[in-house]
């Protein structure tokens, strides 16, 4: 496995407020996720999971630290990329707790929207979306509207949307929370398959006891600090 790809975080800190009321949400997070790897990020409420995800997703500014995405340093005590919007669009995939599909776009266009926003011709973007939908086994619902899909199908479409621009990293925020055990395991299996197929580093934020045993590596976060430990990796090779 190459160490110069995926995502590497060193000493990432985030402080909210200042002076006596300052709160250190992240106190020096260090973690690395390699291409093709799915790691779990677990911790209790208020431990800093969401803050870390927002920092990784370039939607809030860390206070200090360093982040390397692929070969490029994107943060080193300050953002090193000018266009954070383009960074999120082209190089970071998101999968949310709820699918949050755009209700007025059909399944194909929900997935194809990102490459279209990046300037890809519509036909090419749709072809790429269909390829992913096929890989995720929802191609038969390509023309359906989100409201016509089951919860599991919606989450698979959301995963396809996260993957469509072939980002080096995907941030999944409790992607199995609304699903039953069987569907939750199916989603984790899909994430593992996709990580391998597209050599994507996937960080799954969760406190879902059902899926924690499936990770080979787990980062525990508590009081703004991460601790790495080996997972059971049960069920996936």
């Amino acid at each position, binding site marked *: 496995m190459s160490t110069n790809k995926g995502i590497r975080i060193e000493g990432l800190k985030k402080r909210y407020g200042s002076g006596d009321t300052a709160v250190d949400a992240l106190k020096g997070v260090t973690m690395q996720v390699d291409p093709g790897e799915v790691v779990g990020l677990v911790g209790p409420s208020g431990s800093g999971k969401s803050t870390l995800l927002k920092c990784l997703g370039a939607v809030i500014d860390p206070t200090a630290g360093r982040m390397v995405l692929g070969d490029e340093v994107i943060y080193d005590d300050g953002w090193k990329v000018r266009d954070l919007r383009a960074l*999120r669009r082209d190089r970071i995939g998101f999968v949310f707790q709820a699918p949050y599909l755009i209700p007025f*776009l059909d399944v194909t*266009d929900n997935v194809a929207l990102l490459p279209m926003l990046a300037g890809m011709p519509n036909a090419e973007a749709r072809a790429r979306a269909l390829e992913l939908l096929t890989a995720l086994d929802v191609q038969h619902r390509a023309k359906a*509207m989100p409201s016509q899909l089951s919860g599991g199908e919606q989450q698979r479409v959301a995963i396809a949307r996260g993957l469509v621009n072939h980002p080096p990293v995907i941030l999944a925020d409790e992607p199995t929370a609304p699903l039953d055990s069987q569907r939750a395991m199916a989603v984790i299996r899909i994430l593992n398959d996709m990580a391998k197929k597209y050599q994507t580093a996937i960080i799954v934020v969760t406190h879902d006891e059902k899926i924690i045993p499936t990770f080979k590596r787990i980062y525990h976060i508590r009081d703004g600090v991460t601790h790495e430990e080996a997972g059971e990796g049960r069920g996936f090779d």
Partner: protein
Amino acid sequence: MISLAGRDILHAWGKFVFTGIGLGLLIGVTLTMAGVYRGMIDDAMVLLDNSGADLWVVQKDTQGPYAESSSLYDDTWRGIAAMPGVASAANVTYLTMQVRAVNRSQQRDVRAMVVGVSADGPGTAGWPPYLVAGRQITRSHYEAVADIASGFRLGDTLQIRRNRYTVVGLTRRMVSSNGDPMVFIPLKDAQQAQFLKDNEAILQQRRRTAENPAFNRPGVPGLLDAVIASQSSNNYVNAVLVRIKPGTTANEVAEPIRRWKRLTVFTRAQMEDILVNKLIATAAKQIGMFMVILAMVSAAIVAFIIYTLTMDKIREIAVLKLIGTRNRTIAAMIMQQALALGLIGFAVGKITATFAAPIFPKYVLLLPGDSLKGLAAVIVICALASLIAIRMALKVDPAEAIGG
């Protein structure tokens, strides 16, 4: 790139169409009101056109005969006709009143402007320039020509004060500046109608005159009869309509009449100014005020609907921003929806106004230019109304899409 606004509209078409219909009815009312204003101006112009006059000679220091009352002796026209540059001069009277058709089983009561025309015959200033049915007035008394908008028909018997008139001709677009249809009758009848008192009043006046020793002198036989006769006749008209000779200008002819006859004379331009800027000025202001209020209500509706639609999509907007959608793409989506709503509303409004105009109780003149201005106003209002929703959408934090 696909049209996000278009897809959203197609997805929630019912909301857009029904809101558009509601907005369209408001726009339709606004266009109709603009049409009413145009119609009032057109009525005023038609009144001047159809009078066939180049100059209006009226009582000194009045703005008659349409905006103020005006009385002239009915022989004034003779002196005017002899003035340099005058081709012809004709008396005319105007009296707005309720006119009834009494021959029908159900009596019609129509507000009309009764016009007394001189006995010089068709083609004279003041006469209806054309007919759509029947013939012109050929007798000195008790014949009438009515505007077709009055609803009167050929052969109808009209009651004007104590006398009855037979409708012998119908004309079109002969209306007062208020839009009341005109009924033309012979001048002498019109003078009598303006002056006519009821029998009781006549008896009272004769008794008072007879009891006045100044009028009933034993040594002056015939004086009382002469006084009573003068009291019961009307020798006044409201205006003299003047046509000028070719090669002269209205001002050239008007000035000597003002100087030598000591009367007020209006040219066409001055009469247009009186009708448009004075007679219908208050109505125009009222219409303008209503249009401003309607525009504000329309803007509020569009702003509220677009704001609500945007509020419903806050989470999707947060997701769109998180996955890298530009602010301008989101702003364009909201503005396009507002404009689409405005265009649906305008189409509905234009159709409504077009179909409502013929049945509106007042003449509604819908000009293409006004419609274009209305369309431009709708676009501007919708664009401005969408700014609140756009501002809110741009404030949405993409981090909202990430839980916690």
